[in-house]
């Protein structure tokens, strides 16, 4: 019994700290809203309505959360292995671009081959884009923060600046529209599928404004898989050991390089999946701006989720709500960048409150005298 109550206590503390961070961030956010001469009450109610005000809003909040959950996972997993992956943005772009090319290039593949192929290709390339800084870190001790940020900028040059220009066939800054066989199932089209249209809630989804697509469920599955990987497999045990104490891990016969590279590859693949979803599910092509800063928001998501895959789902939903609600705020005249500010504030407060957690733990433990 004792061990469960301790575990529950620590989960509650984590939850409480995250909640506190959000609340304080929102409160500080009101200061910035005052700068716009609008009322915070208007702003936050617009936020709420935009995110939860109707079934369609909620569905779109889930849609917005999809890439955030994935980039959040992409930051959280390596964090557990002692690494900072700031490169989710670039990994997302590379994955999405690859999916976009596979999506339009192969014109006569059946859907059950084309779609998985596009997804896997995108995830693989994303994985490479993550594995590369992992390799540099493992073999040459290159600081992964700088390496991943450099790769972000390189990815932008490769995909948005160069890649689009090679393949575009219209005036839009985007690759050609993907084939139908590579498109992800969109919930608004639910009535087109005889089996699904008979489900009780089917009609609710059939609104044209709803943009939710199947990648949301892939994201949830990814979270569960990563949770299992981290906490139930030997690979996860080794990653966490390396993250806490690389010297102790080496003593224990653990190959730190393998752990680092694997963690970064998986992380890149997951971030790549975020990009894949945006291309195959949201935009139906790789278009300039499809990344929308998801890679950086993912950092806030990972932190507020206490770098735990399940926490990341919750964090992703929260920031999805903020993003969706932010649109509504924009309509009432408040710059949606407020949401970005709130994200940054969340990061500050989570980091600051983390110290509090360490302080609490020190109070409990034997201290000082050894």
């Amino acid at each position: 019994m004792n061990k469960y109550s301790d575990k529950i206590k620590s989960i509650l503390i984590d939850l409480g700290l995250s909640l506190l961070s959000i609340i304080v961030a929102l409160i500080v956010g009101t200061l910035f809203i005052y700068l716009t001469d609008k009322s915070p009450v208007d702003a936050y109610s617009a936020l709420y309505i935009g995110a939860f005000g109707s079934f369609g809003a909620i569905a779109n909040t889930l849609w917005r959360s999809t890439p955030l959950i994935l980039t959040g996972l992409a930051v959280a997993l390596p964090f557990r292995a002692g690494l900072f992956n700031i490169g989710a943005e670039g990994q997302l772009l590379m994955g999405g671009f690859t999916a976009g090319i596979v999506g339009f290039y192969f014109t006569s593949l059946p859907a059950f081959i084309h779609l998985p192929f596009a997804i896997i290709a995108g995830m693989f390339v994303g994985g490479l884009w993550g594995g590369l800084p992992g390799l540099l870190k493992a073999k040459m001790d290159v600081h992964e923060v700088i390496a991943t940020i450099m790769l972000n900028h390189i990815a932008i040059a490769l995909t948005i600046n160069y890649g689009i220009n090679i393949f575009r066939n219209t005036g839009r800054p985007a690759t050609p529209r993907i084939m139908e066989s590579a498109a992800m199932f969109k919930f608004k089209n639910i009535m087109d599928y005889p089996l699904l249209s008979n489900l009780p809630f089917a009609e609710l989804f059939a609104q044209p404004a709803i943009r939710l697509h199947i990648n949301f469920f892939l994201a949830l599955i990814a979270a569960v898989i990563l949770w299992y990987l981290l906490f139930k497999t030997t690979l996860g045990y080794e990653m966490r050991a390396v993250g806490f104490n690389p010297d102790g891990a080496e003593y224990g016969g653990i190959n730190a390089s393998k752990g680092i590279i694997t963690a970064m590859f998986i992380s890149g693949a997951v971030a790549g999946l975020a990009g894949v979803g945006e291309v195959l599910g949201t935009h139906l092509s790789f278009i300039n701006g499809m990344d929308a800063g998801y890679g950086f928001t993912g950092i806030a998501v990972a932190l507020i989720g206490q770098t735990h895959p399940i926490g990341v789902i919750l964090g992703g939903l929260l920031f999805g709500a903020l993003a969706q609600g932010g649109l509504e705020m924009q309509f009432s005249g408040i710059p949606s960048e407020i949401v970005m500010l709130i994200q940054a504030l969340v990061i500050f407060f989570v980091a600051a409150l983390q110290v509090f957690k360490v302080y609490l733990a020190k109070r409990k433990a034997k201290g000082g005298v050894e």
Partner: protein
Amino acid sequence: MDTLKQIFSLSLILASFRFATPLILAALGGIFSERSGVVNIALEGMMLFGAFAAVYGSASTGNPWIGVLYSMIAGLSFAAILAIVCVTFKANQIVVGTGINIFASGITIFLLQVLFGVKGTSPIVNRLPAFRILNVRFNPITYIALILVPVVWFIFFKTHWGLRIRSIGEHPAAADTLGINVNRWRFISVLISGILAGLAGAHLSIGDGSAFVREMSAGRGFIALAAMIFGKWHPFGAFGAAMLFGFAEAVAVRVDFSFIPSELISAIPYVLTLVVLAGFFGKSTPPAASGEPYYKGEK
């Protein structure tokens, strides 16, 4: 052949100084911070915010020098956040640094709208006076940067301030036992890094250009960190490295490479940074205590 001639022309080398300026300043700032034991990856955000503040200062007073002052205050204020949260409250330096960068991106765009009513680019403002050598524009901030290099060297290796900063970055407990206030010196070092990064931003917006464009720092804060590492945390080394990166950017902007697509040329500085960091030019060891918060009484 023609390409080569272009690369090694005098005007390109002069242009390197211009492009290297923000890197030199930010790298010097990074040296202060990291030599004292605090990893500062928020140089990027401080630079961006400094760039914006410079434009705001110049716009509201008409005097670009006020803009310079504003840029330094802007960098200082972000550095204060890093210092308070990381040195005083001992939070994770990289996480907070990342937060500051995100905050800077958001606040600059936000303030563009609130203060100037625009979305992506600020109105044109008065820029700093400058003169040209061989078709290359030099503004005062470049001179400041060049003068600061030997000044920073002098501070670090010839004064007691420098001795103390170096010691707290290598062995803070040793300094503590001699009565040196480790966290106070770290705090000050971080503030200095913010001032220098902010000044770097001023070069970008009102030194080189005459307006603020969103995200105009474009990763230079991180390239500056790479210059600092490559230069082994030494002012002269960082200067040399910054010049190298500045040269790369100058080449990317001004030289005609027929065999590389123009869209990819912009990626050259970033690729070069990666190559440098991967140690193709030798390994670098940071100050021993860098990155770890200092708790009194713990060894």
